[in-house]
């Protein structure tokens, strides 16, 4: 038997601006995302908003299936148990059909759903998700990039222990404003792999958990667990690529074309139906590759790496 569900009548409409992108939420649930986004972004994108329709259904039967994500052409489908989301990249809309229990889990919306929506719809709203950590140091935004396993998160935390403010440890969302590029974090937990407990004693009191991609990791609020300063956005001034080495630490300047190529190859491919959105990404990458960039080759602990890098940055 098939249960036909129509989207529920809208009782509430409100906007949130994570990463400077306006998301207009229309829902039949009063408590959804309540208090999840209290601060307003300074640099809001001028692009048209994302429309997020959230229908909270009483008649959905709960399911324990693992999170699931698939996409074809302009549509992306994801499910979390019984709750499902259809993202339409061409129309900049998201249709969510969720259980009442799911609707009220503000942490899941803030840490999972909204970042995924921005990741998928980014190109259609002038936003580029960048696989990089981001820190603020003396009004200067610093992006830490590198392949998976290069140590972005641990070095970001170690640098934050030396007074930088942490914006993001994994995904940074970039868009253009009249002031130049603007980098945003979404206030999601910092993810540190299980061996990070060797370097940050605060983690010893916790147990690592299996994360969304199957890795065993600590996912912690950097302000609460690690007592770090956090902020939500910055204007980027420098890019540092991380590379583990067995030799002595060194900082080697990188060409614009290398930076451009790295981020382009690291970005998710778009299907031919969305090719026209590629222009947005290329424009952001072109501006990003104008920033001074270097590769930081380092060995040893994240703390010693952070101290070395900070010393060199001070000298600059």
């Amino acid at each position, binding site marked *: 038997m098939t249960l036909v569900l129509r*989207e529920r009548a809208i009782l509430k409409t409100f906007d949130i601006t994570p990463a400077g992108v306006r998301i207009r939420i229309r829902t039949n649930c009063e408590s959804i995302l309540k208090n999840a986004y209290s601060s307003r972004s300074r640099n809001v994108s001028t692009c048209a908003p994302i429309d997020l329709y959230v229908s909270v259904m009483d008649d959905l039967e709960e399911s324990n299936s693992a999170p699931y994500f*698939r*996409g*074809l052409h302009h549509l992306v489908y994801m499910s979390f148990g019984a709750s499902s989301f*259809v993202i339409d990249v061409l*129309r900049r809309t998201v249709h969510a059909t969720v259980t009442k229990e799911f609707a009220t889990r503000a942490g899941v919306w803030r840490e999972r759903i909204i970042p995924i929506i921005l990741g998928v719809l980014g190109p259609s709203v002038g936003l580029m998700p960048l696989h990089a950590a981001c820190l603020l140091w003396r009004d200067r935004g610093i992006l830490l990039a590198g392949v998976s396993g290069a140590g972005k998160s641990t070095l970001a935390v170690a640098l934050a222990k030396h007074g930088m403010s942490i914006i993001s440890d994994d995904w940074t969302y970039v868009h253009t404003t009249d002031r130049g590029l603007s980098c945003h974090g979404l206030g999601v937990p910092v993810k540190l792999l299980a061996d990070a407990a060797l370097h940050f004693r605060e983690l010893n009191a916790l147990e690592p958990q299996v994360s969304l991609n199957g890795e065993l990791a600590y996912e912690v609020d950097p302000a609460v667990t690690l007592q770090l300063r956090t902020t939500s956005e910055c204007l980027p001034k420098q890019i540092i690529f991380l590379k583990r080495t067995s030799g002595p630490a060194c900082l080697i300047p990188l060409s614009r074309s*290398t930076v451009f*190529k790295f981020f382009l*190859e690291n970005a*998710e491919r778009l299907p031919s139906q969305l090719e026209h959105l590629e222009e947005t990404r290329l424009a952001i990458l072109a501006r990003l590759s104008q920033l001074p960039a270097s590769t930081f080759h380092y060995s040893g602990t994240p703390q010693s790496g952070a101290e070395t890098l900070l010393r060199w940055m001070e000298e600059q």
Partner: protein
Amino acid sequence: MSVAQSPDLLRRFVPTPYYSVVETSSGPVGIRSNDGAFSYHRKPEAAPDAATINCVLIRDDSVPTRPQTLLLEQGDLLTLLIAEGAHLHLDGPKKEILGFARNSLDTLVILYWIERLLTHGGTGHE
């Protein structure tokens, strides 16, 4: 520093080498898939460009099963979540069905659901 290949986290780029035009009560549907079994149900005389509705169907055993089959009416989209492990999305204005289904779902069952989706969506020839 280069990465080997852009990731395909959403499996958007699964090759779909098979194409068949099948007849439904809503009109001929062209199905592109990684499963050649749809060709057993093809309309023999149909030209490849005869389809008025296009469908891309990927066989994928990681599609979750559900306690119930749901048909969700969502603006221009109709989403069918099949209990046995499939999700089909009809984009009415684009006359396009996109979806993933477990290998265990018989092609006849999938064609039945495509027909149901089109009938509900009113995308056929009147």
